[in-house]
């Protein structure tokens, strides 16, 4: 049985490790064949736990397959293929191998039936993705990768402590559903949420992803946050806290994306926003909601990759990232424009695109549960998504006023990658049954009812109208910075700013209060531990002997007390 003998994640990792030694045709062949082979394995491997092993005296299940893990592993493999196709002409020797290790460990994490395997792949993912950011080779990317690694290692520390606590308490390493009844389980949840980009550490997403190379960001957008959604689906379905965390992320993403000028940062904020929908779906916890979260993760990976591919193509061609420096590119980059627009329509859940068939399930689940506030918030957020990603991104990059740039469409491999993903985005929107059949629970949901379509179209048309009505105001602020009279900031939830400013004021006074002692403490650490610090200097022999005497005296004293 070849499909149970070969682990698709390890296959992709192995391919990644082989890539640095290959050139030209063989390199391309391996880079494209390995993810496809992995996808085939994922599709055909039967359900069940295939490898039984023991690690640290505990039974582990490194290759456990069920409907949920198959769905995520499949889209990860597809994503690895698309990313590799798009990145084929990137000269970096490091990026693609690192991305394959990253993608392979994401697949490995989804097939992890036990927590130790999950942790191992979790850490490997952090290392792989850091290397992807690194390989952009700019000082900004190096600095960002450092911050990124710090956040993820912190998450890893939380996860390891939580896993150890869970194993210590139950004696089992199996990755099961957790209840929030112990410190260990809270730690595990916190670690998952760090990777999902949840508050208070959401900032790492938009901080790091845009600093990767034009092709690196495409890889990055897919794996880390969606693996987090997967483990939340498996470990914490129906945890109410997640509904509110998810909604927070949804609005956080919208507000910051609307304020942003860098096209890839807009899309990075929009990742947080989209993952927020999924996290909220996990929190709702009904079969419909979980199906919706899983399906939305699936479609989101595809259209977000497509959007970032089009942004990457623009960056590749022009070397510019800021919306205010771009515009009018549709004249010479028609294909990129079309594909980017398809991605934008999909993220806005336009009917006949993949976003429509997945996101509406989450809203429907909220409606079925009669959670009016949640439903309303999700509906408002859908309008917000259309504003920031659906219109703002393509409008400012491809249309708007002419920037005078006349770059051509990107090379063939990049065009092909965009076409494949655009076809998937439209295809899944039209022929959605195959996707529904892959979902963890039976899906008898019908997306294309009159009510659904009309409601969504109304939402989109009115927010689109709002955008274009306000265009004159936009023209006056060509550099999109923090400008108070900008309509969307006022239309965006006002409470957000209130909360923000209140928190900031509180934080400022607190920071002042803490800063001086903190600076003093840091100074103390450096004074004593620095290269010439008292603890690092070469001591005289007498000094050392003195310490011996002190310690002996202390021990004797303790003994005789």
């Amino acid at each position, binding site marked *: 049985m070849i499909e149970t003998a070969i682990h698709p994640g390890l296959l992709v990792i192995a391919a990644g490790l082989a890539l640095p030694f290959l050139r030209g045709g063989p390199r391309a062949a391996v880079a494209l064949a390995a993810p496809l082979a992995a996808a085939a394995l994922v599709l055909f491997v039967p359900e069940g736990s295939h490898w039984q092993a023991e690690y640290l005296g505990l039974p582990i299940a490194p290759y456990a397959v069920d409907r949920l893990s198959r769905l995520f592993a499949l889209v990860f493999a597809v994503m690895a293929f698309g990313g590799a196709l798009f990145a084929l002409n990137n000269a970096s020797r490091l990026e693609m191998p690192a991305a394959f290790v990253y993608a392979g460990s994401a697949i490995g994490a989804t097939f992890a039936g036990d927590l130790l395997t999950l942790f191992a792949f979790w850490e490997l993912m952090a290392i792989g993705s850091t290397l992807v950011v690194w390989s952009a080779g700019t000082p900004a990317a190096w600095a960002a990768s*450092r911050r990124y690694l710090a956040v993820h290692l*912190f998450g890893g520390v939380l996860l390891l402590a939580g896993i150890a606590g869970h194993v210590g308490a139950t004696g089992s390493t199996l990755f099961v559903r957790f209840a929030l009844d112990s410190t260990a389980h809270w730690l595990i949840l916190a670690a998952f949420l760090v990777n999902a980009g949840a508050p208070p550490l959401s900032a790492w997403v938009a901080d790091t992803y845009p600093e990767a190379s034009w092709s690196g960001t495409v890889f990055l957008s897919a794996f880390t946050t969606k693996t987090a959604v997967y483990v939340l689906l498996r470990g914490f379905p129906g945890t109410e806290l997640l509904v509110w965390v998810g909604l927070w992320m949804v609005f956080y993403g919208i507000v910051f994306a609307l304020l942003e000028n860098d096209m890839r940062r807009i899309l990075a904020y929009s990742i947080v926003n989209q993952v927020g929908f999924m996290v909220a779906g996990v929190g709702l916890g009904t079969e419909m909601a979980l199906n919706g979260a899983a399906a939305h993760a699936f479609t989101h990976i595809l259209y977000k990759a497509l959007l970032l591919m089009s942004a990457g193509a623009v960056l590749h061609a022009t070397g510019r990232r800021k919306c205010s420096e771009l515009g009018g590119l549709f004249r010479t980059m028609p294909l990129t424009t079309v594909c980017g627009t398809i991605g934008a329509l999909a993220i806005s859940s336009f009917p006949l695109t993949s976003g429509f068939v997945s996101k509406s399930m989450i809203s429907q689940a909220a409606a079925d549960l009669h959670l009016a506030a949640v439903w309303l918030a999700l509906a408002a957020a859908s309008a917000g998504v259309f504003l920031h990603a659906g219109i703002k991104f393509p409008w400012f990059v491809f249309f708007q006023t002419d920037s005078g740039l006349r770059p051509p469409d990107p090379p063939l491999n990049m065009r092909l990658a965009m076409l494949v993903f655009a076809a998937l985005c439209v295809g899944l929107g039209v022929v959605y049954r195959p996707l529904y059949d892959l979902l963890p629970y039976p899906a008898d949901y019908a997306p294309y009812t009159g009510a659904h379509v009309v409601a969504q179209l109304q939402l989109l048309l009115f927010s689109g109208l709002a955008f274009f009505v306000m265009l004159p105001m936009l023209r006056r602020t060509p550099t999109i910075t923090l400008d108070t009279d900008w309509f969307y900031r006022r239309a965006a939830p006002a409470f957000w700013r209130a909360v923000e400013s209140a928190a900031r004021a509180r934080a400022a006074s607190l920071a002042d209060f803490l800063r001086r002692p903190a600076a003093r403490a840091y100074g103390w650490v450096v004074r004593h531990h620095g290269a010439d610090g008292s603890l*690092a200097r*070469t001591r005289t022999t007498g000094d050392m*002997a003195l310490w011996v005497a002190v*310690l002996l005296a202390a021990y004797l004293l*303790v003994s005789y007390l």
Partner: protein
Amino acid sequence: MIAGQLPALVVVVPLAAAPLVVLVRRPVAAFAIATAACAFSFFAALLLAAEVAGAGPISYALGSWPPPWGIEYRVDAFNAFVLVLVSGAATVVAPYGWRAVAAEVRRDQLYLYHATFCLCVAGLLGMAITGDAFNLFVFMEIASLASYILIALGRDRRALLAAYQYLILGTIGATFYVIGVGLLYLVTGTLNIADMAARLPAVPDLRPVLAALAFVTVGVSLKLALFPLHFWLPNAYAYAPSAVSAFLSATATKVSVYVLLRFYFGVFGLPLVVETLPMPQILLALSIVAIVSASLVALWQTDLKRLFAYSSVAQIGYITLGIGMASREGLTAAVVHLFNHGVTKGALFLLVGGVALRAGGAGFASLRGLARAMPLTALGITLAGLSLIGVPGTAGFVSKWYLVIGAIEAGRWWLAALVVATSLIAVGYVWRFVEAAYLAEPGPATPARGEASPVMLAPAWLLVAACLWFGFDTSFTVTSARRAAALLLGGAP
């Protein structure tokens, strides 16, 4: 016939090799004899470990004088494990010395290096295998004197000062140890460790025993470089020849940890150490300071050898932390980490030695752009560095896992958090290397393109591979450590 004599041979062969080397003198022959002796000891240690695992402890009466009158060599699950570590490290380092030491030591002194290396190996193996407290002192002195000489052979003139300081402090440590043993002899009338343990509970006056405990603790703590008795270590490791740094960091402190464990749990006994005295608490406090403080110091070091030396002090803190938990999981963690850290640090020092040889030093200036000049060395240091941090899939993770489990089982969440959080400091200092080697542009001090000699690279990579291997297959390390922990806590052997 020979098999029955293995416990003696494992020590005697390297011991006898030393004078033989001095007689032959020719570097090639000296090297061959020393390497063969180490390899033999390794082979013998493996056989002993296998036998002990199958048939239980072996008692060997030296000169056929039955214990407790004669000197007994006693091999059990714990010291068989230590024997494997020491002789294994010696067997890996010995061939490395062929090129590395030849470059650092005057040619007419080469045979002296090989002779003292054999003595050091014999001394450390003797410390581990002997069942006699005074015989242990003798071997401790053999190993220590040999290591002072080995450190003093370093090219840097500061090596002399480092060796001198180590000599003074090592002598104080050994003296304290022997004072402690003397006090024990006073009250029990025996020097055999097992016999001592059997007679101690019947001793009416506890005072000399407590004094003995204090002296042995401080003496051995000095040898194993427990904070704040570690000040001799960084210079000794930094200025010694690379092969010596690697060998000593992998073995010397580890054998001292073994002695401490043997005395705490095999002589004084758990009730005295844990219940009568707050030894675990003191050990825990010192370990935590060692971990945090030495890791922070490592963070700011400007020389890679010194950086790893300070990291050794921190890692020893993890080992003593496990001892301080005084529980089954804690001791398992301590024993596993003793082995895993030996392998990891051995690999690191061997690789850094290659850099120091090519660049004339291991300062951070010469590490800039190292990944381009010496890609295999840089990759090896990074991988072993991952094990130092405790990334899953490496040996370091296994030790850290048991430490965390031990802390959680004792209900000490804060300790578990501390263990995982301090590994972030290790990330910091390993990252400094990665940043210099992979991100910085080569500077004037960067060595020219070209790896270290394969004779040096192969042993180093063998240990790097071991770091990864023992991260996946834990059957040898963890099983041995569990047996050792059970043995120490008085369970089944």
